[in-house]
C-alpha cells in the first residue's frame, strides 16, 4: 500500500459531494416538514378508517378553515390504528411538533392525565359546547380528576340488535317494547332459538358477554361498576361483578355446552362482522343468531357483504341484571383532542365546536357514528333511509340518541389498556374453567389497582 495520505476519490468532485449532501439533507428534512403544523393552518390526524371516512373529514376541515379565513388545512389519514397511531402521536408530541387536532380511537384519559393533551375546560366555558351539553357518562370518557382532555364528538352506541323475523317465526312479539327487560328473560328466550347438531351450533339465541371492552356496560346493568373514578378504586371483584360472571358462566354451561370453542367452530357468533381470522360469516347476518349486543357502527355495514338473509331487524335497550335496577348503554366514541404543543389551539377548539354540532350531522348522514352533543339535530343516515325507509330510520336515530344520553361511565381510567387486558385474561380464565370466577376477578382487581396506584404515584 502506498503511503499517500487519504484523499477524496477523484470521481467524486467537491461540487458533487456538496450537491449530494444537500440532497440528503433535504430528503431528511422533508418528512417532518410535510407533517409540520403552521400557525393559522390546521393540521388534523386521523387514526384510520375508510376512504369515505377520510374524505368526509378532509371536506369538513377544509370547509371550516375556508369559512374561518384560516390558511389551507391538512388532514392526514390512515396513520395506523390502535397502538401504532398512539406511538406516532406521542412521538410528535414529545418532538414538539404535534398536529393541532387528533382523533383517537382509544380513551384520551391515560395520555391526558400525563399531560399529553390540552385541558379543554376553560375553552368550553362560554363556547357553543359547554360541559352541560354533553351526556355526563360520555364526557367522563375524556375526564380525569375533573379535567376534560378531549371531546367524544360522535360515538358508536351499544344496544341490543335482534332479528325480528326470527322472533316472529317463533310466534314472539318483535316490537322494541316487548324485547326482554332482564337477563333472566333474555336467557330464557335465548333457549328457544338455540339448536345443536352434535357439537355444531346451528342457530343460537343470545350469547353471554365475553367482550372485555363492554364488560363495564354489563356490570352497570347489574348495578355495579368496574372503575370508581371518584375514589380511584377498581371494583372488578365486586359482588355484582362476581354475580354477573357467574350468571354468564352458568348460561354458557346450560345452553352452549360450556365451551366457547365449540361455538366459535360453528360460526361467528361474537359480532355482526365476518371473522377476519377464520373467514366465517356473521351468524347474525346469516339469520342463525336471534340477537346480540353491538355498536351502532353496524348500521353502516349491515347492508354490505354478506347481505343479511332477512330484511327486518331492530334495536332495543340493554336488559338489566339480577342486581340491576335500570337499563344503561355504553359507547365507543370517536374522541378528539388538542395535543399539547398545538400552534393553533383556539382555532382547533373552534373546529371541534363546529364538528360537534354542524359537522357531526353531515358525518352521521354518511357514516352512522352517532353525534353526542345534546344540541345536535340528528338526521337519519341516508343509507338507512334508503334500505329501511324514513320512518324506521328516524325511529332508530331517535332511539340511539336516547341511548347516548344514558351511557354508563367507561373508558375513564388512566390505565384503561391495562384494565382491558386484565379483564380479557380473567374472562378467558373463567370461560375456560382455568380459574373460579372469584379468583380470576380478584387477580385482575389486584393487578389493575396496583398499576393504577403506580401510575398515579408522583
Amino acid at each position, binding site marked *: *500500500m*502506498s*503511503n*499517500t*495520505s*487519504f484523499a477524496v476519490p477523484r470521481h467524486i468532485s467537491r461540487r458533487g459531494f456538496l450537491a449530494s449532501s444537500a440532497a440528503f439533507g433535504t430528503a431528511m428534512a422533508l418528512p417532518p416538514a410535510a407533517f409540520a403544523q403552521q400557525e393559522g393552518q390546521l393540521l388534523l390526524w386521523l387514526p384510520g378508517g375508510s376512504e369515505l371516512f377520510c374524505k368526509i373529514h378532509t371536506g369538513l376541515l377544509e370547509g371550516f378553515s375556508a369559512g374561518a379565513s384560516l390558511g389551507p388545512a391538512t388532514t392526514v389519514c390512515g396513520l395506523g390504528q390502535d*397502538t401504532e397511531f*398512539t*406511538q406516532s402521536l*406521542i412521538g410528535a*408530541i*414529545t418532538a414538539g411538533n404535534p398536529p393541532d387536532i387528533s382523533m383517537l380511537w382509544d380513551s384520551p384519559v*391515560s*395520555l391526558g392525565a*400525563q*399531560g*399529553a393533551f390540552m385541558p379543554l375546560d376553560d375553552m368550553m366555558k362560554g363556547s357553543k359546547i359547554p360541559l352541560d351539553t354533553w351526556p355526563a357518562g360520555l364526557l367522563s370518557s375524556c375526564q380525569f380528576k375533573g379535567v376534560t382532555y378531549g371531546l367524544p364528538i360522535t360515538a358508536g352506541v351499544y344496544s341490543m340488535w335482534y332479528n325480528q323475523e326470527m322472533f316472529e317465526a317463533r310466534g314472539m312479539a318483535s316490537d322494541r317494547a316487548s324485547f326482554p327487560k332482564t337477563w333472566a328473560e333474555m336467557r330464557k328466550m335465548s333457549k328457544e332459538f338455540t339448536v345443536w347438531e352434535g357439537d355444531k351450533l346451528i342457530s343460537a339465541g343470545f350469547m353471554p358477554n365475553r367482550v372485555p371492552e363492554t364488560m363495564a356496560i354489563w356490570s352497570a346493568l347489574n348495578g355495579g361498576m368496574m372503575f370508581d373514578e371518584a375514589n380511584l378504586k377498581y371494583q372488578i371483584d365486586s359482588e355484582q361483578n362476581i354475580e354477573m360472571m357467574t350468571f354468564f358462566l352458568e348460561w354458557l354451561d346450560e345452553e352452549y355446552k360450556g365451551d366457547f*370453542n365449540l361455538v*366459535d*367452530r*360453528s360460526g361467528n357468533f361474537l359480532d355482526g362482522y365476518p371473522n377476519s*381470522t*377464520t*373467514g*366465517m360469516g356473521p351468524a347474525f347476518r346469516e339469520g342463525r343468531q336471534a340477537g346480540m349486543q353491538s355498536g351502532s357502527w353496524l348500521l353502516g355495514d349491515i347492508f354490505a357483504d354478506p347481505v343479511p338473509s332477512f330484511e327486518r331487524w331492530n334495536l332495543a335497550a340493554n336488559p338489566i341484571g339480577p342486581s340491576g335496577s335500570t337499563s344503561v348503554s355504553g359507547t365507543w366514541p370517536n374522541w378528539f383532542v388538542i395535543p399539547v404543543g398545538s400552534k393553533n389551539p383556539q382555532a382547533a377548539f373552534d373546529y371541534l365546536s363546529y364538528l360537534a354540532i354542524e359537522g357531526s350531522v353531515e358525518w352521521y348522514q354518511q357514516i352512522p357514528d352517532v353525534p353526542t352533543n345534546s344540541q345536535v339535530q340528528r338526521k337519519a343516515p341516508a343509507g338507512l333511509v334508503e334500505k329501511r325507509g324514513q320512518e324506521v330510520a328516524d325511529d332508530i336515530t331517535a332511539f340511539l340518541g336516547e341511548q347516548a344520553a344514558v351511557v354508563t361511565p367507561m373508558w375513564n381510567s388512566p*390505565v384503561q*389498556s*391495562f384494565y382491558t*387486558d386484565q379483564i*380479557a*385474561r380473567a374472562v*378467558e*380464565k373463567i370461560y*375456560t374453567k*382455568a380459574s373460579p370466577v372469584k379468583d380470576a376477578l380478584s*387477580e385482575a382487581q389486584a*393487578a389493575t389497582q396496583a*398499576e393504577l396506584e*403506580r*401510575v398515579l*404515584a*408522583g
Partner: protein
Amino acid sequence: MPITAPIAPQAAPLLPRRNRKAQRAEARAGLFFALPWIIGMTIFVALPLIVTFYIAQTKFQIVGAPKWVGLQNYEALLRDPAFWKSAQNTLIFAAISVPLKLIIALGLALLLNRATALLGFYRTVFYLPFLMPAVAGSVVFMLLLTPNAGPVNIALEAMGLNPPDWLLDPKAALWTLILLSLWPLGVETLVFLGGLQNIPKDVSEAADLDSPKRWHKLVWITLPLITPMVLFNLVIGIIYSFQVFTQAIVIGGTTGTPAESTLMYMVVLYRAAFRYFNMGLAAAMATVLFVVVLILTLLIFKTARSWVHYEGGET
C-alpha cells in the same frame, strides 16, 4: 513434499521513519472508512443500550421527564405474573424450536447438497418463506389452521383423525407457534449448505472409501466439518427465539390468547412500553433479556472450543 530447514525467527527490524508514517496514514484512512459504521454503532446501538439501562431505573411514561426510582422496576418485574409466564413460554419455545430448526435445516441442506438439476429451484423454494413478511405468513397459517373451515383440519378429518383446535386450545397453541417457527428455514439451510459445499472433495471421497455406511460419514466427517455453521445457526437461533414477537402478537394479541399460552417475553415488553406506556418496566425487561441472551451466547462460545472444529485450526 520438500523438507526445508526451519527459518529462524528474526528480530523485527526497526521500521524506517517513512514506513511508520505510512502505517499511521493507513490507520487513519482505515479509521476514516470505518467511521460511518462506528458513528452508526454508537448512535443506534451503544447509546440506546446505555439509555435503556438508565430508563430501566426510572418511572417514565413517555410524556414528561423520567423520574429516578432505582431498582423498583426490577422488583415490579419479579412480582409480575405476566413476566414469569412469558419467560416460561419463551424458554419452552426456544428450547424446542432452536434444536428442531437446526435438525430440519441440516436435513434440508443435506438433501440440497446432492447434485440435482433442480438444485437452484429447490434452494429458491426453501428460501422464499424467509422473504415473506412474518405478519402475512402468520395470517396465512391462521387461515390454514382454522378449526372447522381450515384446509389442514379438513384434510386431517378426511383421514379419520381428530385434529386439535390449533390456535384456540391453550394446550395446543404454543406447540402450533413452535411449528410455525419452523417454516422460514431458508437462512439456516443456506448456511448449512454453504458449509457442506466447502467440505473438501478428497476428504469426502476418503470417507466413502473408509466406510460404505452413509451415517458414518455424516457423524464422523460431515458434522465435525460444519460445526462452525452449527455454532452460527445456534447462536443466531437462540437470539431470535428469545425475541419471538411477530407471530406471537398476530396470533395471541397482547394477552397471549388462548389463556396466555402464546404470551411471549417480547409481547409483554412491547405492551408495557407501547400499550401501558410503562417505559421503565419495558426497559428493565429489555435489560434482563439482554443479560440472559449475552450469558447464553458467552456460554455457547465457551463450550464451542471443545466441539467446534475449524479447518486449519481456530483463528
